[in-house]
């Protein structure tokens, strides 16, 4: 009997979307449970670390978005085909997390001067990030190996807001543009994106 999955997070993309895209790309059914903010305080006490997202699988509960995504990627064959490929996939996903941290640090800074400074630093940071990934990624629209891994999905998630601000951000990065195209072409991903709720982050 296949495991039943329940994925719980806010009605946001943020730290949940990568896992949702893994489910979608792999064509795996799951319950996409979205908590409203007012429900959160009561729910929080029942979580392992007072945080979301959560994954319930086979009666066990896992938190930490990275741990969940990696587990799902392994379960669905999207984690890489050897231990070395897995390490490369990990490397790319970690790099995207660093990018997302920088984007969040700028977006959520409460001090106006710090926010301006961080936002200014984003331009060169994103350029360097894209330069590195273009050099390291594979030629056929996959960052690692010859088929979709969750590194491609993570890159897609990371680029969402960058591309929203500048639709031509990948003009000079043909390999990376191909990665985004391959992800968008994936049937499961395309169907999910067409139906998912619109959220700010």
């Amino acid at each position, binding site marked *: 009997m296949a495991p039943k999955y329940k994925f719980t997070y806010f009605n946001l993309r943020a730290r949940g979307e990568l896992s949702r895209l893994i489910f979608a790309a792999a064509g795996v059914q799951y319950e996409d449970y979205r908590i409203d903010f007012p429900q959160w305080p009561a729910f929080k006490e029942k979580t*392992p*670390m007072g945080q979301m997202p959560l*994954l319930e*699988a*086979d009666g*066990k509960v*896992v*938190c*930490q978005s*990275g*741990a*969940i995504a*990696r*587990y799902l990627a*392994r*379960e669905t064959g999207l984690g890489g085909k050897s*231990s*070395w490929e*897995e*390490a*490369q996939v*990990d*490397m790319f*996903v*970690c*790099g995207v997390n660093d990018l997302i941290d920088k984007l969040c640090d700028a977006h959520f800074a409460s001090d106006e001067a710090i926010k301006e400074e961080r936002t200014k630093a984003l331009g060169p940071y994103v350029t*360097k990030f894209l330069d*590195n990934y273009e*050099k*390291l990624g594979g030629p056929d629209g996959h960052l690692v190996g010859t088929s979709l891994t969750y590194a491609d999905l993570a890159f897609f998630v990371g680029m969402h807001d960058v591309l929203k601000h500048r639709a031509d951000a990948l003009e000079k990065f043909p390999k990376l543009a191909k990665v985004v195209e391959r992800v968008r072409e994936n049937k499961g991903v395309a169907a999910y994106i067409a139906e998912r709720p619109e959220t700010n982050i």
Partner: protein
Amino acid sequence: MPTYKLTCFNVRGRAELIRLLFAAGEIPYEDVRIEWDKWPELKPISDTPMGQIPTLEVDGQVICQSMAIARFVAGKAGLLGKTNMDQARADMLLDGGMDVGKLFTEMVMEKDASKKAEKKKEFGEKHLPPFLALYEGFAGDNGHFVGDSLTWSDIGFFNMMDFITAEYPGALDGYCKLNKVIDNVKSNPGVAKWLKERPVTNH
């Protein structure tokens, strides 16, 4: 037998977990330590994929990102966890530790003395105790976080507390299960040998 070359600054820092994992797995590797003044020469992408260290070179291929490297080495050492779900649990506990580790590092790196004192008090009173209480709950009576044998989540916890107890001695007093985790890690033969032999560095 593949050849492994780990390159980092001459600090424990982000590389120490990796070194502990090589040690626990009794896997030989080259432990290359770069002094600050040599760093600019190394930055070209052929040596450092993302302009950062640590990097791990395996038979001529290079990856970066300390946790990606650590996870790879943990796998080679058989310390990831026995099932996918065990591995997810180990990952979860390590990531939770890193959230707290990040706050600790911010405190240590704070250059302004009075801000640092404030951050030190806040970390010691507000962040560390609930973290330790939570993890005491996660640890098994056997002194392991996952299953019934050593995994890299035990070693990661040990490594982090090694840094933290330098600033907050006695932080682990009273936490029976966490102290058992620490003892289990320290008594691993490879780790014990490494702890005796490793270079002493400030960070």
